[in-house]
């Protein structure tokens, strides 16, 4: 066999070897990826893993809509802490007044933090009931909007869109609420609140139920809502 032909054969063999090696690399990389595609990280992540914020909205009205949102908390924190636009400045939201109907929310949160467990605020009106309590370091707010149920029936019937009975439950760790109001009186420190929220592994945050819609917001270490 001439020397040039031998060199050519060796070169071809070398190229074939390189191509085979690359093909092997592709297949080895594709195999776990294919497995991941079949079961896209549905299992619960171990402790210390990424926290995920989940939003679930179900409408049973004529729209019959279903919305699911899953956001990694680190993504929310990173983006929030880097945005400087309008009233949002690196995780801090600037607002004009934190007082609501002359109620000092900041002061209430501070007082609740050092208080014992129990129900602290109860407001009962003809169409709405509000309960604010503290339980195991959690601030619990329960609002029942009786809507048309306790309204004048005739008025409700005449209305094109009669109000619906609605239940709202909000659960926030007091340390998170405290961090939210940790800045000056005209700002909300959302970034700090999210940082503290991330210390919790699983937490139910908001639940809204009425006749036509349910909204559920919670945080855990799963990537899915199962």
């Amino acid at each position, binding site marked *: 066999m001439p020397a040039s032909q031998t060199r*050519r054969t060796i*070169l*071809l063999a070398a*190229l*074939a070897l*390189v*191509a085979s090696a*690359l*093909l092997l*690399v*592709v297949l080895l*990389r594709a195999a776990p*990826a294919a497995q*991941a*595609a079949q079961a*896209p*990280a549905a299992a619960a992540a171990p402790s210390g893993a*990424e926290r*995920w914020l989940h939003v679930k909205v179900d409408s049973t009205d004529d*729209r*019959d*809509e*279903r*919305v*699911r*949102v*899953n*956001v*990694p908390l*680190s*993504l929310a924190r*990173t*983006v929030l802490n*880097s*945005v*400087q*636009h309008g009233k949002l400045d690196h995780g801090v939201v600037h607002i004009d007044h934190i007082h609501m109907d002359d109620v000092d929310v900041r002061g209430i949160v501070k007082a609740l933090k050092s208080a014992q467990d129990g129900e602290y605020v109860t407001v009962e009106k003809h169409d709405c009931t509000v309960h604010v309590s503290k339980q195991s370091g959690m601030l619990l707010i329960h609002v029942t909007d009786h809507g048309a149920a306790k309204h004048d029936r005739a008025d409700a019937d005449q209305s094109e869109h009669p109000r619906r009975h609605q239940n709202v439950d909000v659960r926030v760790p007091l340390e998170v609420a405290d961090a939210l109001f940790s800045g000056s009186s005209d700002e909300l420190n959302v970034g700090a609140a999210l940082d503290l929220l991330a210390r919790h592994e699983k937490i139910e945050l908001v639940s809204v139920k009425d006749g036509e819609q349910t909204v559920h917001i919670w945080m855990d270490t799963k*990537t*899915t809502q199962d």
Partner: protein
Amino acid sequence: MIGKILLGATMATAVVMKDGVIEVNVQEKRPDGSHVHLYLPGTVATWGVHLAPERRIAEHLRGKQQDLAIAHLALRELEKIPGADLVQVDSPREHVNVAIRNGSLVVDVDDPGETVHVRMPIRAARKVIEDLQADAGGPST
């Protein structure tokens, strides 16, 4: 000849492996509707930025450095996610799904007019943003 083919295949594999594949599939649902389905190596997206005139890009991106930085940060965070459904909207009329699958951002829309499927490797998108940041004269995050 076989060597050249193998070399070409090797190079093509390397290009595809580098930044993944961009997939766009749009199917109109009307009887004479069009169907566009294309695959592009993710590297092509970065080539596009390099081919565009730098001065024009800088003009368009003036004052957008912060937006690019946020997009870059968001993509870097998304790159860490192995796989997840980020947004799902289901109604009798339409279905929308935004997900992360194997390092790609996948968007699926199915409505009465058309079905759309877009797969964009996050790494390629991040590199595009980095190139745009460089062209816009902003700091790389």
